[in-house]
C-alpha cells in the first residue's frame, strides 16, 4: 500500500486517480497555500498601523491601484473556492455524505460562478482607481 516514493507518489496518484474528487483536493491545497501566503502579505500591509495613521494610509494607498484591483479578483477566486469546497468537505466528513460528494461539487461550482460574477462586477469600478481621492 505504501509507496516508497513521496513526492513522486503524489504525482503518480494524480495520474492514476483522474476523478473530480482528486482534482478538487489539489485545488483546495493549492488555494490554501496561496491564501496562507496572502495572509502574510495582508498582515505586513496592515501592520503599518503600528507605526501610526500616516504610515498606514500611505501603505494602503500603494495597494489600491488598478493592478491590485485585478489581483484581488484572483484572491477572491481562491477565497471563494476554498470556502465553498471546504464547506463541502466538512459536510461530507461530519455527516458521512461521501456518496453525494460529486453532487455537492456541482453545487460548489455553481455557487462559485455566481460569487465570482458578483465579485467581478463590484471590482470593475476599482480599475479606475487613480481617479478617486483619499477618503476619510
Amino acid at each position, binding site marked *: *500500500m*505504501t509507496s516508497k516514493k*513521496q*513526492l513522486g507518489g503524489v504525482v503518480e496518484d494524480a495520474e492514476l486517480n483522474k476523478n473530480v474528487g482528486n482534482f478538487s483536493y489539489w485545488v483546495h*491545497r493549492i488555494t*490554501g*497555500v496561496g*491564501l*496562507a501566503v496572502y*495572509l*502574510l502579505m495582508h*498582515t505586513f500591509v*496592515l*501592520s503599518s*498601523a*503600528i507605526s*501610526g*495613521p*500616516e504610515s*498606514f*494610509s500611505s501603505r*494602503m*494607498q500603494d495597494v*489600491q491601484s488598478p493592478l491590485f484591483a485585478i489581483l*484581488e479578483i484572483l484572491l*477572491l477566486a481562491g*477565497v471563494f473556492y476554498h*470556502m465553498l469546497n*471546504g*464547506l463541502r*468537505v*466538512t459536510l461530507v*466528513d*461530519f455527516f458521512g455524505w461521501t456518496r453525494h460528494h460529486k453532487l455537492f461539487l456541482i453545487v460548489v461550482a455553481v455557487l462559485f460562478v455566481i460569487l465570482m460574477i458578483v*465579485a467581478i462586477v*463590484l*471590482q470593475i*469600478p*476599482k480599475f479606475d*482607481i487613480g481617479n*478617486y*481621492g*483619499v*477618503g*476619510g
Partner: protein
Amino acid sequence: MDAKLSNQSVLTWFLQRITGLFLGFFLITHINVHHLLHDITTKGLISFESVSENLASSTFWKLYYFLFVPMVVYHALNGLWQIIADFRLSGGAALTIKILLWVLGIVLVVIGAMTLNNLFGGA
C-alpha cells in the same frame, strides 16, 4: 499497512473544520465591509481614518476581529502542517517544523493584535 500514511492527528483534522466553518462566516462579512462594499467612487480610497471610523464605534467589531485573527492564523498554519504531515517526515524534522509554525503563529497573532489595537484607536 506497514507504515503511517500521515503525521496528521484527529484533533488537527477536527479543529481545521471547526475554524473553517467560523472563517466562512467571518470572511463573508470581512470582504463585504472592507473590500467590496466600501464604495471608493463615493467614499474615496481606504485610509486609516476610514477604517477606524468603521471599527472604533462598536464592541462587536472588536470581538469579531480579536477572534478572527487567531482563528485565521491557526487555520492557515494548521493547513500547511497538514500538507507537510502527509510527507511523513521523521520525528525530529516534524517537531522542528511544528515549533517553527507555532513561533510564526504567535508572532502573527501578536502583530495582528497590535495592528487592531492601533486601528481601534490605540491604548
